């Protein structure tokens, strides 16, 4: 390589190279990326949107969109929203508390490093293992099953609520809290000690500082993070799929049912409309998240 390079560098071709580079329009460099993203991201998304508005004969039809107002779809959406809102709220509050507790130790401390690393693993790593971890905890023969049966008098065969909506909220919390820590910790780190000193100089008590300075400053960041958690829960599939093998209480599982059984509500391809609904909900939430993030960044770095 090096021997090849040297003659090029010292040789007379130096003057020829840049002009050749200038001749080719720089936009050509983007072609592979754009083509790839078109095939594997844009085409599937457009397929979903178009498919949602297609009738059985391939022509335009609002039939599938209308079916979204049906009882099954509405019920699933309601449960999905309930699951996403509750797990996002629990995750946001618990995660913010955890951030606050961790923040007392310096950035390079073992506690901070371990917490961020563990949160990274739990927030990013697949839902299947998390679902099974909770089955091992509260399911049949689980670690806590016997203990809870003795203490609280619950079912010694394992918690049946684990496989329904309350169980999903619990298991989702397990990845929502770490995600909150990841996205909210930087905002909390951005709160400068000087602000507190300034408030103290003006005679504010700790409560007054938090109430009138700290919380208002952190509110956009907190709301933004909570929105991200909501979108995360709403779009999640693996955990619910691994935990709930029968039935479809939430939208992602209803999409699974439409994909695997082909016939839901007597209609095939209903999944397109459900998927479109999911994109719409998630994009609205993510847009709000981006907007709040911009507001936050004005104050916090």
């Amino acid at each position, binding site marked *: 390589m090096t021997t090849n390079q040297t003659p*090029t560098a010292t*040789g007379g071709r130096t003057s020829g190279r840049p002009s050749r580079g200038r001749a080719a329009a*720089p936009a050509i460099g983007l072609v592979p990326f754009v083509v790839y993203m078109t095939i594997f991201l844009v085409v599937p998304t457009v397929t979903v949107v178009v498919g949602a508005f297609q009738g059985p004969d391939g022509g335009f039809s609002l039939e599938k969109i209308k079916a979204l107002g049906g009882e099954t779809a509405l019920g699933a959406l309601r449960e999905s929203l309930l699951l996403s809102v509750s797990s996002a709220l629990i995750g946001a509050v618990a995660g913010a*508390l*955890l951030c606050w507790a961790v923040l007392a130790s310096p950035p390079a401390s073992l506690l901070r490093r371990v917490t961020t690393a563990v949160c990274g693993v739990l927030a*990013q790593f697949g839902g299947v293992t998390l679902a099974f971890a*909770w089955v*091992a905890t509260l399911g049949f023969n689980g670690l806590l099953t016997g203990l809870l049966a003795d203490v609280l008098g619950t079912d010694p065969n394992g918690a049946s609520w684990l496989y329904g909506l309350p169980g999903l909220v619990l298991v989702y919390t397990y990845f929502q809290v770490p995600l909150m820590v990841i996205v909210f910790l930087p905002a909390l780190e951005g709160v400068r000690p000087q602000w507190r000193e300034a408030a103290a100089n003006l005679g504010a008590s700790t409560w007054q500082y938090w109430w009138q300075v700290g919380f208002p400053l952190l509110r956009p960041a907190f709301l933004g993070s909570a929105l991200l958690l909501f979108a995360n829960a709403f*779009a999640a599939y693996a955990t619910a799929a691994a935990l709930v093998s029968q039935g479809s209480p939430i939208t992602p599982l209803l999409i699974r049912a439409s994909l695997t059984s082909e016939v839901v509500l007597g209609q095939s391809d209903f999944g397109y409309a459900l*998927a479109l609904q999911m994109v719409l909900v998630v994009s609205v939430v993510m847009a709000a998240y981006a907007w709040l993030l911009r507001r936050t960044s004005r104050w916090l770095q």
Partner: protein
Amino acid sequence: MNRRNVDGTRTSFGVRLARGLVLLAALLFFATPLVALLDFSTAERDGSRSWEAWTSLLDDPLMVDAIVTSLTLAGLTVVLMLVLLVPTMVWVRLRLPKATRFVEFMCLLPLTIPALVLVVGVTNVFTWLTYFFGDTPLVLTFAYVVLVLPYAYRAVDASLSGLDTTTLSEAARSLGAGWWTVILRVVVPNIWPGVFGAAFISIALVLGEYTFASLLNYETLPVAIVLTSKSDASLSMAASLASILFAAVLLVLLSLFDRGRRTQGGSR
């Protein structure tokens, strides 16, 4: 340092107690299910312990196939992702700054379009992928590159923005280097932390990916874990714990790289 002193002189016993309790609660909440996995995978019917589920992890043909498939997928995804992403990002930085927002938008888009939605729409694309490449689970690579892109983009972007690419490339170009030489021999060696970060997080994400694989009926590790859970619960629990520990090791390595970069940037 400053903050610690300010806090240290003021923090009351009650606040410190509350902090400790929050940390303890978090520790219990996050550790219990993992301990339960270990407990479940080693428990015997008569109450004794055995590592049978763990040893049979590498005897079970379904598991072994699935592990090989998942690891191959992870490797292929990393290679394809790097080949697609790194030259594009460097090129945009050097020659096409106007396209920065566009590329960023495209890379972060998979966060807004859930994997489940892509699965619903991707059937046609996969029909002709299997037509060209045969019916192998490895075609999942193409979809996985899209899924890991937001995380990979952030990792590479963080490294790139700490680098004066323009000056470096101008220097290299004035010495006669071609664009490929600039990208591969000048820029890439300077952004190794970002490239490694992107690779690690991609591997972790691919190893845990369930949506695409299960709905398109390919037997990757998470799919095999779910399938096995119906016949051999202990084995699936052992596989779950093993995969989460493997991902943990990868992501801890990633955080080490990350920290190395940050302290470097801080001292500058």
